[in-house]
């Protein structure tokens, strides 16, 4: 065979291959479109049943029976809508969908899928189990917190929060250690969703060797209003070696708002503490909502550190009580030209703006 013939043959074979590939792609797309249209039609046919199931009162037996009895093809078309609805409803409607999924064997299938090779399958399974609040899946989901895929780890963390099993607190906190395989905010959100049952694990985590774990534990205890841990948090604010942990602890003490937090926060605004801790403590004193914080905040208005003084003024404005407002007004009137007066004036101006008014600048220039 000559070179020319060889080239022609190669070109012909290439052209054939390209045509074949083109045909495969076009056919594949056409089939996919057809299947999508058919699934959409099927989903639309059964949508009234889904709405009846989720929106019905006690008469859901019939839609439940009919949806549970759907053949595989029809269920495949209905399932995405059902899962989508599961994320949007609560109470009786959620329970009805979970009951349907249980009858369809979705939980069993999802539990099996947690071990699949494909990350999408594992993540989807974790997502469904979380939405269903499938308590039995908690240990397997805790195992996925160290999954090789970051997406799977994130979905597993969220699912554990949705399930709300208190025993998930330890693995969730552990997932933050050693660099953390799961984003902090996801772990924090899930820990919050676990509720009061997670508090013993969170209180224990305040002594964890890793600062990241202590920081999240401190933050979540404040966010969940764990007032019984206020004294432990006060100890952390005073002695934790990490500035980040102390900052989050100060914020939490402000959120807890119990009387014992006041002295600890006032102390944390002292000059011996790092700047970030002082700034947060000045804000937290406003969060406490106690008029007893007014004298300390008043002293901080003249603080040489800008953000400390600024936050103290904003805290006084947030307290909003007579004495706090009087301090701000007196500072503007009696200390003109000082930075303290500037911070006080700004805090009052923000309050005015919130009330739809514009405060006139002070007559004396503010340095």
């Amino acid at each position, binding site marked *: 065979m000559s070179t020319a013939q060889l080239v022609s043959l190669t070109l012909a074979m290439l052209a054939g291959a390209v045509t074949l590939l083109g045909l495969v792609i076009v056919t594949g797309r056409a089939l996919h479109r057809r299947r999508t249209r058919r699934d959409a039609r099927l989903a639309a046919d059964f949508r009234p049943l889904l*709405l009846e199931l*989720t*929106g019905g009162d006690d008469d859901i037996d019939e839609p439940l029976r009919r949806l549970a009895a759907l053949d595989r093809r029809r269920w495949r078309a209905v399932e995405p809508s059902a899962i989508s609805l599961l994320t*949007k*409803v*609560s*109470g*009786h*409607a*959620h329970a009805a969908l979970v009951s349907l999924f249980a009858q369809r064997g979705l939980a069993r299938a999802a539990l099996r899928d947690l071990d699949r090779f494909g990350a999408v399958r594992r993540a989807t399974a974790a997502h469904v189990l979380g939405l269903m609040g499938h308590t039995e899946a908690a240990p397997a989901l805790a195992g996925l917190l160290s999954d090789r895929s970051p997406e799977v780890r994130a979905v597993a963390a969220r699912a554990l929060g949705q399930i709300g099993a208190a025993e998930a607190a330890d693995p969730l906190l552990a997932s933050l250690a050693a660099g953390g395989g799961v984003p902090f905010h996801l772990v924090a959100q899930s820990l919050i969703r676990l509720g009061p049952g997670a508090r013993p694990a969170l209180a224990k985590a305040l002594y964890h060797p890793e600062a990241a774990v202590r920081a999240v534990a401190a933050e979540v205890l404040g966010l969940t209003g764990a007032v019984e841990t206020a004294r432990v948090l006060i100890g952390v604010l005073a002695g934790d070696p990490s500035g980040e942990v102390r900052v989050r602890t100060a914020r939490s003490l402000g959120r807890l708002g119990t009387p014992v937090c006041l002295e600890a926060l006032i102390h944390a605004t002292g000059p011996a503490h790092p700047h970030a801790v002082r700034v947060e403590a000045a804000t937290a004193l406003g969060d406490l909502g106690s008029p007893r914080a007014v004298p300390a905040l008043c002293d901080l208005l003249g603080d040489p550190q800008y953000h400390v003084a600024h936050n103290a003024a904003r805290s006084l404005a947030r307290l909003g009580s007579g004495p706090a407002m009087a301090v701000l007004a007196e500072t503007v009137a009696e200390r003109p030209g000082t930075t303290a007066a500037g911070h006080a004036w700004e805090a009052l101006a923000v309050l005015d703006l919130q009330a739809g008014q514009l405060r006139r600048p002070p007559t004396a220039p503010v340095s």
Partner: protein
Amino acid sequence: MAIVLVAEDDADIRDLIIFKLEQTGHAVTAVGDGLSALKAAREQTPDIILLDVMMPGMSGIDVCRELRRIPETAGLPIILLTARAQESDVATGLTAGADDYIVKPFSPRVLADRVHSVLTRTRA
């Protein structure tokens, strides 16, 4: 029976609300964005309006504020639908003039009860 205007961009939620409210005997008009809600409220003067906070074009809070400004819609009862993560919007919504709010994910039963309760309260 009341005429209810529902403004919600999520088709699942919109369909479910329509189903539930029609089941409880109300006549429902539904739209998918804020501007359409404003237009429908002015044209149809419903008995009550359900507004999603996050909608394309104009937020539910802005719609609420605008409805309160227009004399013919100023007195209409309004319920806001807000996602749990936007709970801070609730205060803004109530300040904007909403009568009540429902947090998503929501229970259709509770939603129907809230509509009934706000209607009873505002008609009294």
